[in-house]
């Protein structure tokens, strides 16, 4: 309300003032509850995965992850992620560009629609492709006549993976590009740069960390998706099993050590994802601090 007068930013005290700090017993109680919750729900399960996988020693563990079915599951998982992540990356950049740089009617509806796959149950995400490409589905007859297999084959798994990971990159980029505005791009364009040049040299360096963050999360979900892929895969061993489906089959056959061995690889992937995510968060904090406050 003070108009254009200079506002002095109060210097924040490095440590919390004593007055607002709760009594010791409250602090100890809250910290104890938080640590107990985290231990019970995060740390014990994490340790359990590796402990179960190595229960019979390294030899059995290494044999389990080198088994032909396990290797083919790893390959299929890499294929599914390798196709769905780049496609959703291109979509994410296009959607963020459209929403952040332009004003148009129906923008909020578009934002909500982009979020849709997040709020749909994984089982329904698989079911929709059964309805489209299954034997009784819309394109079922046509596909059979032309001898194209989508359902219970690799294309179905890829489609289901694209669907469940659809919003990840867009979700990270839209708020970031909205916050950055388009002054820098406008300057580049006025100075004569082409549209693509502006994108590569101005926009991309500004959004690189957010982009990486979105890709990391998208990849983790793509490699770990279970429900949707389970509906469309048909569970053919060595052919249409991804790593999570291989974990399920081994577990249901009471082959617990092998199930946890494959699961441990997915857990390592989760840990790498968390580590990268933390690094990217530090980097974005750093670059945000480098931007001078208005």
């Amino acid at each position, binding site marked *: 309300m003070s108009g254009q007068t200079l506002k002095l930013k109060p210097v924040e005290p490095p440590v919390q*003032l004593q007055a*607002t700090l709760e009594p010791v017993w409250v*602090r100890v109680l*809250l*910290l104890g*509850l*938080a*640590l107990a*919750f*985290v231990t019970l*729900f*995060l740390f014990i*399960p994490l340790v*359990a*995965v590796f402990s*179960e996988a190595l229960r019979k020693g390294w030899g059995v563990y290494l044999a389990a992850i080198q088994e032909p079915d396990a290797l083919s599951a790893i390959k299929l998982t890499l294929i599914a992620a390798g196709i769905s992540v780049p496609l959703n990356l291109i*979509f994410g950049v296009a959607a963020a*560009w*459209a*929403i952040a740089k*332009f004003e*148009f009617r129906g923008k909020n509806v578009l934002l*909500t629609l982009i*979020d*849709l*796959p997040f*709020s*749909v*149950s*994984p*089982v*329904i995400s698989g*079911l*929709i*492709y*059964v*309805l489209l490409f299954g034997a009784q589905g819309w394109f079922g007859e046509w596909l059979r006549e032309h001898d194209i297999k989508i359902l219970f084959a690799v294309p179905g798994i890829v*489609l289901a993976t694209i*669907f469940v990971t*659809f919003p990840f990159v867009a979700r990270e980029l839209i708020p970031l590009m909205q916050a950055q505005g*388009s002054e820098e791009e*406008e300057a580049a*364009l006025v100075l004569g740069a082409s*549209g693509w040049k*502006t994108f590569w040299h101005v926009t991309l360096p500004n959004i690189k960390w957010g982009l990486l963050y979105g890709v990391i999360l998208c990849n*983790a979900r793509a490699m*770990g998706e279970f*429900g949707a892929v*389970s*509906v469309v895969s048909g569970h053919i061993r060595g052919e249409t099993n991804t*790593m*999570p489906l291989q*974990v*399920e089959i081994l577990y249901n056959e009471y082959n617990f050590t092998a199930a946890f061995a494959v*699961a441990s690889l*997915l*857990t390592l992937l*989760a840990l790498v*994802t968390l580590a990268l995510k*933390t690094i990217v968060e530090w980097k974005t904090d750093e670059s945000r601090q480098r931007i001078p406050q208005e």
Partner: protein
Amino acid sequence: MAFLSKNRAKARRVIPGFHLSVGFTLFYLGLIVLIPLSAVFIKTFTMTWEAFWHTVTSERVMASYRLTFGASLLAAFINVIFGGILAWVLVRYKFPGKRLIDAFVDLPFALPTAVAGITLATLYAPNGWLGKLLVPLGIKVAYTPLGVLVALIFIGLPFVVRTVQPVLEEAEKELEEAAISLGASHCQTFVRVIFPTILPAVLTGFALAFARATGEYGSVIFIAGNMPMISEITPLFMITKLEQYDYAGATAIAVVMLIISFILLLTINALQAWTRRRQTAGRE
């Protein structure tokens, strides 16, 4: 394109790529999300209303709704309490291992659901690390509705923490200091000053955790035991229908679940808008 270029908005646009980016976004959205999802609704129209109603209200489905939504509500509520405490501790206290715990909060997002499922089932089985302690006390978790609850608490854990944490960080210390120095107790300060600030974020986290839990499949099926009428969740019932080639039946239940998801999505959007208004209003 020609008629659009006469548009008033276009005249002011300097940034290129409007048609390309909006066009590609709509094309990809339609192809990947909208057309496939519409198949669910169109398939349901092939059923008579009586058949549809009979399918979505049969005794076994009703039992699965009660379990799915009951356990999801309870799990989201438990996550509000413990997630709220965790966010509070992470923002306001200093303790060793804080950064590590902060990073691990997102584990349920990053860990594939099937891995979470088999791990929780193994831990809480009668001979598992935790089952061994609980079963002698008469608490059976694995293969009961309680197992469903445990899995849903796990997958919903990050939501409340991650929505409340930034709001607590941004909350103005001055208000709290003023309340304390004017003689309010810590309890009063929390209820009257801090809680109203974080309420929209808490509700958003609750709704996100609840929405995620209602559709969850992978982490639940291993620990639930999946007994019809007792520990069978709605997503699993859809799978059962599909395996019996009852596509119409599975689709009818999917429509019910989708409508509930849409309502939740709109609620979450409204709650997030409220959170943002609260935060910006606080800064002015």
